[in-house]
């Protein structure tokens, strides 16, 4: 499974962690050809490789559904937990208490998150668990062969299902309302943006939601469907061009800096996310503005993509719980079992 560690003067395809891209791969995908999820898995592999992340420092999570199968298809060297339908957030929350130096990487779908898992989704936002939460959003249940999900747009018609009478759930809006600290949207047909947002999300300390419109080529790829490649390409309205600069890199694109249309966000680890504005002078640190942008997009039938909101101020879970520096799962009996004198004291108190 593992590759031998590179020797000095190793070829250039070895990253700063000494790993090749192969070290980030998983088992071959069993999803449909052309599925947006496969493209996202590939971007995860590339992003993690380019970030020189140690796979052992990442824990993968998922729920149930097509999207939730995909953690098998990347990063074999990371622990993973394919849990229950809609319950990924609770498993991840508990698991990440085990070792607070680890980063969660969760992959869920629109059914898994916006229908059966809505409650847990909102609460993991609230707790600001240190995890990238990807929603591979195709508006449809694939694994059970083509039923509506809660993110399907009103008026969509599906074979055997008729026409959807309800407004869709907006994952980014729900995340924002629940005080998520990083909210972004992208489109699987825009791999460069997916990759840059993944990197930024990974650098964020806390919960980072990535709602990625990921067309289902089998059950929901009508040219007029919101979650299709055709519609996405025609209606995508990026908020900005996004570039992620790793902390150790000192090269900043000076020319772009001078354009005056550039916003920088410094992440917890010192890395920088550069957002080059396209039209609207958008400020992703303004929650009110973010809500306005989402509402506006919905009214105008735009697929806005990019970093919608980021807040680097809120404490993570290990700070909130004031945890010891040593990962909890490395503590020993000496740390965990109180001394006999303390039981004598307790017995003295029991009256």
């Amino acid at each position, binding site marked *: 499974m593992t590759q031998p560690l590179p020797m000095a003067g190793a070829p250039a395809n070895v990253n700063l962690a000494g790993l090749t891209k192969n070290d980030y791969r998983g088992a071959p995908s069993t999803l449909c050809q052309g599925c947006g999820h496969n493209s996202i898995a590939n971007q995860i592999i590339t992003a993690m490789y380019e970030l020189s992340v140690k796979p*052992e420092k990442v*824990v993968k999570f998922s729920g149930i559904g097509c999207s939730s199968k995909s953690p098998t298809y990347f990063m074999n060297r990371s622990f*993973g*937990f394919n849990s229950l339908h809609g319950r990924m957030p609770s498993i991840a929350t*508990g698991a990440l*208490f*085990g070792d607070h130096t680890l980063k969660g990487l969760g992959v869920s779908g629109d059914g898994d998150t916006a229908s059966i898992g809505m*409650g*847990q989704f909102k609460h993991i936002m609230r707790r600001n668990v240190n995890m990238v939460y990807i929603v591979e959003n195709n508006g449809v249940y694939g694994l059970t062969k083509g039923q509506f999900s809660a993110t399907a747009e009103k008026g969509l018609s599906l074979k055997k299902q008729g026409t959807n009478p309800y407004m869709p759930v907006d994952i980014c809006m729900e995340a924002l309302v629940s005080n998520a600290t990083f909210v972004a949207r992208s489109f699987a047909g825009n791999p460069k943006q997916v990759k840059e947002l993944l990197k930024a999300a990974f650098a964020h300390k806390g919960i980072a939601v990535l709602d990625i419109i990921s067309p289902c080529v089998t059950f929901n790829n009508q040219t007029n469907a919101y979650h299709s490649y055709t519609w996405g390409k025609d209606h995508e309205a990026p908020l900005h061009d996004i570039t992620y600069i790793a902390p150790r890199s000192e090269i900043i694109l000076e020319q772009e800096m001078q354009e005056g249309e550039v916003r920088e966000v410094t992440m917890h680890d010192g890395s920088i996310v550069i957002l080059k504005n396209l039209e609207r002078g958008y400020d992703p640190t303004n929650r009110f503005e973010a809500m306005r942008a989402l509402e506006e997009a919905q009214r105008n039938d735009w697929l806005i993509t990019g970093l919608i909101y980021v807040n680097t101020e809120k404490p993570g879970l290990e700070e909130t719980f004031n945890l010891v520096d040593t990962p909890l799962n490395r503590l020993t009996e000496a740390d965990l079992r109180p001394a006999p004198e303390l039981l004598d004291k*307790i017995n003295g108190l029991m009256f």
Partner: protein
Amino acid sequence: MNKIVNDFSIIVGTKNGSGSSTANNTILRAIFKMGVPVSGKNLFPSNIQGLPTWYTIRVSKDGFTARREVNEIVIAMNPDSFVRDLASVAPGGAFFYADDIKLPINRTDIAVYPMPVKKIVREDPNVPADFRELVGNMVYVGVLAQMIGIDIEKIQAALEFHFKGKQKPIAMNMGAVRAGAEWAKANLEKKDPFYIEPMDKTHGMIMADGNTAAAIGSIFGGLQFAAWYPITPASSLAEALNDYFPMLRKREDGKHTYAVVQAEDELAAVGMAIGAGWSGLRAMTSTSGPGLSLMTEFAGLAYFAEVPVVIWDVQRIGPSTGLPTRTSQGDLTFVNFMGHGDTQAVILLPGGVYECFEFGWKAFDIAERLQTPVFVLSDLDMGMNQWMSKPFQYPDKPMDRGKILWEKDLEELKGNWARYLDKDGDGIPYRTVPGNQHPMSAYFTRGTGHDEHARYSEEAHVWYNNMERLKRKYETARQYVPAPDLRETKGATIGIIGYGSTEAAITETMHQLETEHGIKADFLRIRALPFTKEVGEFLAKHEQIFVVEMNRDGQMNQLLTIEYPQFATRLKSVAYGDGMPASARWVREGILAKYEAKKAPAKAKAKATARRTSVRKAAVKSSVKKKSSVKSPAKKTSSRKK
């Protein structure tokens, strides 16, 4: 009039939310401190304020602590329950009531004592107006103390304990106690026969509730992560964790080696606990029936993915919402088979406060050893009421972290391991946890079918083999769970099986059966599932076995019948469930109703019946030859079933 000393029951009727629990606990603790065996049970409504609530105190020189259904002394503080309370006084008993309740008293067979509670409190300048109702409860404590002889100094000690030494509330409450006592001394003439006199029968004992004991036991078990959702009667267990963690796991750097998370619901609570258990933490959740129903989906995942986690079920009576403040043993078969598909649960059954502590720490050793959820079933009566107990005993063995591999282990194995490989033949595989930095440490956990390497598989034989291994693991569990507690009586002709909080009622029943009916019984208190060999031995040895439990359908009886079909005809279910703590009355009546006098001890017959399997033959032999071991840890059993 003949004095009746240290052998009667008191019941106090108040409105819930009126703050009477301090007063009632004070009476209980003061009697306990006088060396007299005592038990207290709160019979409360599912309500915050205004409905009738009762607190019963049983004083028993013989040490019987089960609920009695007769009350010799009744204290009526609530006009709404006054008529009922008055009617409930046993003939020859005593009735104390707040004299602002202007209702007729139509009984002449009891002693009646009016108490000017409001007047006394109003006249005390040290009691602010808004404290009058609270402190008023202490007046009946004082009156009662004076009339039956509870030591005022012991009341002081109880209040000092209750208020953790805070002088102001202690003084205010003691003022009311003394005022009540003085008023009674000056104005009441003793017309009843009931007295408390000091004894030496509680020396070295502690008094605690099961939920607190469970929380402290869990902390001594190295608990690191607890997630929970509020539910009666389990909430106080998680709250006790918050109370005791800071003291018991204090560090110089002020940081925490633990986390307690109040989840958004029971699904998330158990999900978080399973996530934490999966990543190598000693993790638990605590709940009651309705919460447990919600946890079913996750319980199946933890069983199948083999994640250690401890789940406390402080049982209340169901089905459905049931009676949230009433006790039961109704979750046994549900937990035993919890989850869809073939599942088998490991269940611990603490018999009291002492074992709530003991199983609190032991549950983690068993869960991590077996890599499976361990359910601990207590109940509202055990969990929320105050019980006398032996002091908690420090764990007698180091933590068992089970088969866990870290970097150096994988180094030695050269990475050659598989998550679900039964290397040792006991059904228990080896595991790694996230954070392990060895490049071969990771695996992908799933609730879908998986092979030995944790890879998804739909192969028929892979599925079959995995399920057979899980079954093997369940058999292995028999050597790790606590053996039953066996109490033998010379010349016993019947067997009684019980578990959990019914022990006190069964003990009292056994005394009554022997002294009043000449029936001697052996008693086996089951402490875990799967059953250990001692259970089969007990069944083989007795011709009539009464299975006592607090539910409608006789759930333990059902499980015994499934496990030991060859003994099914010997089992007689004594099951009763009305939400009230077990009493010797129904246990005795239940046994006598099914008792057959003609049957003789079953030695000879047992041999014949038990021929079916070698296991049972061995069990019978050992029961014939020698007394079966009491409380000995379960040894490796040969009872692996084919």
